[in-house]
C-alpha cells in the first residue's frame, strides 16, 4: 500500500481520531488507528469500544490495503515534519513508512484483521439536523447530566423523538435541562435513547465549524452521528430514563425578568465566597430587585443587587451557585426569566424570546 497525503488534513484527522482511541487499554490495538488505503482516499478509524470514529481523507492512493498504527505516535511524527506532502507506504510486513524529503520513519504495525469491526451503517435515520443547532442544544443540556457513576442512566443525555420534536434532556436529580428542536420531517414517531455524556462531548467538538447537517441513525444497539465525512458511533446506555416531564412545574405564580449578564455577575460575585463553603447563594426577590447574598462561616459574606421586574410575593430562595452559573453561562439570549413557586419547590429558568428551552432547578434547604 502506498499513498500521498496533505499534512494538514492528516494532522486534523488524527487529532479527531486520537479522541476515540484508548491509550490505557490492556489491548494495545485499541491505541492504534486503522488506516484503509482505498481509491482516492484514506479511511481512518479509532475506537475504545465505547465510541468509534471513522473518517475519510482525500489522498493520492497508488495501491490499496489496510494496516493499524499507534495513533498518537503517527500524529507526533507528522506534526514534526516541516513540508506539506507526506508519503505513507508499506515496504516490509509489520512496518509503515512515513516519508518526507530526507526524513524517513518506520513504525511497527498491527494487522488490520485484529482491529475491532466498525458497525455496519444500515438504514434507520432518525433525522437530519443542522450542526449548529445540535451543537448549541448539546452545550445547553450536557452540563446537567450526573457525574455519579452509581446512577449510570443519569450520567447520559436522553435523545428523544416525540411528534415533530427532537428533545435532549439531562438531569442529575437536582436540576433538569431540556431542549426541544422542532423539525419538519422526522422518519420515526417515537424513540428514546440514552446517550453517554462523553459521546455528545466528542460530537460537539466535531461540530465546531457549525456548518452543514448531522444525520442521526439508530443501529441495532448503537447510535451513529454522520457529519461531513465523519461517522461517530456510540454505545447506548441501557435502561429507562426517569419521567422528566412530571418534574417540570406547570404554573408558577411568581416570575422575574432580568439581564442574564447582570445576574451572572451577581451570582459569580456571591460564589467567590460561597465556594469556600457549601456553594450556596441566596436570591431574594422583591418588587424591583433581586438581591444575591452568600455567607460563609469564618470567611465572610457578600451582598449583590440587580434591578429586575418581579411579579409576586417577596421571597428568598437558596440555590447551589454552580447550578445557576451552569445555565447562565450556556444561554445565548440577553434576557432571562426566572419563575418560582416557594422557597422549597422547583424554579424554572428560561431565555426570554426563545421557545424550546427549559431549565428546572431545585433549591437548597438552609440548615
Amino acid at each position, binding site marked *: 500500500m502506498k499513498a500521498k497525503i496533505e499534512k494538514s488534513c492528516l494532522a486534523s484527522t488524527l487529532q479527531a481520531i486520537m479522541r476515540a482511541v484508548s491509550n490505557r487499554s490492556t489491548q494495545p490495538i485499541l491505541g492504534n488507528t486503522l488506516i484503509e488505503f482505498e481509491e482516492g482516499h484514506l479511511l481512518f478509524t479509532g475506537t475504545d469500544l465505547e465510541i468509534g470514529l471513522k473518517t475519510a481523507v482525500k489522498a493520492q492512493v497508488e495501491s490499496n490495503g489496510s494496516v493499524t498504527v499507534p495513533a498518537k505516535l503517527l500524529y507526533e511524527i507528522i506534526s514534526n515534519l516541516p513540508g506539506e506532502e507526506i508519503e505513507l507506504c508499506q515496504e516490509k510486513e509489520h512496518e509503515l513508512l512515513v516519508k518526507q524529503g530526507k526524513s524517513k520513519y518506520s513504525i511497527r504495525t498491527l494487522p488490520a484483521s485484529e482491529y475491532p469491526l466498525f458497525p455496519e451503517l444500515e438504514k434507520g435515520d432518525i433525522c437530519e439536523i443542522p450542526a449548529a443547532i445540535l451543537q448549541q442544544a448539546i452545550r445547553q443540556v450536557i452540563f446537567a447530566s450526573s457525574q455519579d457513576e452509581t446512577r449510570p442512566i443519569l450520567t447520559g443525555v436522553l435523545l428523544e423523538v416525540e411528534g415533530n420534536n427532537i428533545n435532549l434532556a439531562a438531569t442529575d*436529580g437536582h436540576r433538569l435541562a431540556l431542549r426541544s428542536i422542532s423539525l419538519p420531517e422526522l422518519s420515526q414517531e417515537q424513540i428514546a435513547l440514552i446517550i453517554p455524556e462523553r459521546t455528545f462531548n466528542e460530537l460537539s467538538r466535531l461540530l465546531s465549524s457549525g456548518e452543514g447537517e448531522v444525520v442521526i441513525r439508530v443501529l441495532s444497539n448503537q447510535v451513529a452521528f454522520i457529519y461531513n465525512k465523519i461517522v461517530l458511533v456510540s454505545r447506548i446506555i441501557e435502561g429507562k430514563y426517569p419521567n422528566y416531564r412530571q418534574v417540570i412545574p406547570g404554573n408558577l405564580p411568581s416570575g422575574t425578568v432580568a439581564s442574564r449578564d447582570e445576574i451572572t455577575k451577581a451570582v459569580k460575585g456571591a460564589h467567590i465566597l460561597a465556594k469556600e463553603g457549601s456553594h450556596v447563594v441566596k436570591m431574594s426577590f422583591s418588587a424591583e430587585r433581586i438581591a444575591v447574598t452568600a455567607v460563609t462561616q469564618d470567611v465572610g459574606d457578600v451582598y449583590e443587587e440587580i434591578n429586575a421586574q418581579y411579579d409576586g410575593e417577596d421571597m428568598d430562595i437558596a440555590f447551589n451557585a454552580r447550578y445557576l452559573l451552569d445555565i447562565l453561562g450556556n444561554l445565548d439570549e440577553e434576557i432571562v426569566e426566572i419563575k418560582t413557586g416557594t422557597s422549597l419547590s422547583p424554579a424554572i429558568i428560561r431565555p426570554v424570546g426563545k421557545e424550546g428551552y427549559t431549565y428546572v432547578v431545585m433549591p437548597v434547604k438552609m440548615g
Partner: protein
Amino acid sequence: MIAKKTSIIAHIDMNAFFASVEQRNNPSLRGRPVAVCGTGKRTIISAASYEAKAYGVKTGMPPGQALKICPGLILVTGSGRKYIDTSAKIMALFKNFSPTVEVASIDEAFLDLTTSAAPSFHEAKKTARCIKEAVLYETGLTCSVGIACNKLLAKLGSDLQKPDGLVIITPEESAALLETLPVGKLCGIGPSTTAVLRLMGIRTCGQLGKYPLYLLRRRFGALGEKLHLMGLGLDYSPVIPLERSPKAKSFGHSVTLSRDTSDIGLLSGYLLQLSQAVGRRLRADAACGSVLTLMVRYTDFSITSRQKKLYTPVSHSLDIFNIARDILLNLKPHLPVRLLGVTLSGINRTEQLSLFSMENKRYAVQQVMDDINNRYGDKTVRWGAAAGSTPCRIPVLSLCTVKQ
C-alpha cells in the same frame, strides 16, 4: 508590638481513667493489676491500672499479649455509660474553677486560669490543689495537673508526673526543660514524625526549635511551622469551651473485623454498618459530606486509603454505602482485610432538594428510621443485606425486635 498578656492554662488528666473507675466501684480490684477491654475476639485494652502498667501493659494491646506479660492481670469489660457519667460529673466540677473549660477527651480538659491582668503561677497552683481535692472528694479519683502559659506545655506538665501529679512549668523554666526533652514527649509528635525528625538529626525539642524553619517547611509543609513553634514551646491555640467549639469537620467510623477476610460480600456487610453509623451522625447534625474516604487495613497491618470527591454532598446511608462499596471494588483488596473505615468530610450544612419524588421518598424512609432509632435505641431498624445475596447492591430494610 505590644507584649501579649501571659496566659495561665491548666491541663487536667484523669489517671488511668477507665481502670480507676472500675477499681473505685469494686474494692476487690484495688491495688491489683486491672485492664479494661471490650468483649469481641479482637478487642484491645482501652485502659490499664497503674499496677498493670508496672508490668508493661499498655493501652491498645491485645488482652492475650497483656496476660503473657502480666499473668495476674484482671480483665474487666468496659462500660461506656459508667465512664461518661463520671466524666460529666468531673467536667461540671471544673466549671467551678474556670468559666473557660475545653473538654479535650472523656478524661482530660484544659482550663483557662488567666483570671486577672497579672495572673500568677502561685495563685494557679493553689487553684490546682483545690481542683485535685474536689475531684478526689466528689469522685474518689486522682488526676494529674500541668500548669503553664499555653496548652502545649500544660499538657506536657500533666504527663511529667503520674499518677496524682502537679507540675508547674513557668516561662522561665520552659527553655531549660525543652533543651533536653525528647521530641516524642510533646503532644502531637507521634512515632512516625519522631522517626523522620531523628533522620534529620533532631532528637530534642531544643534541637527542633533551633532547626531552620525553611527546612522544616520543605519536609513537612504547613506542619513544619507548627513543629518549629512546638520546639520553642510556643502554642497560640486558645482554650475553646464546648459551646464555642467549631462544628465537626468530618464524620467517620471504623471497625476491626471479627476475622480477616477478602470476601467482598462480607466486607460489603461491614461497609453497610459503617455507612449507617456515619450517615446517622451526619443527619443528626443536619450535615452532609462531599468527600468520602475509605480506609482499609490489611492482615499485614499495611494501610491503604482512597478518597472520592462527590459533586453532590450525601447524607443518606445507602448513598454513602454505594460510594464506599464502589471504592472498595475498585481497590481490589490484594490481601485479607483486617479493618475498614468510612469517613465523610467536606461537611456542608445545607440540603440540596431533589427533583424526583422517588428520591424524596427515600429520604423520608431514612428519616423515619432515624426517628425510630432515636426513640427505641440504636439499630432497632436498619438496612440489612438481603439474606443469601452476596454481594448486595441494594440493601433491604430489616427490622429488629422493638424494645419495649
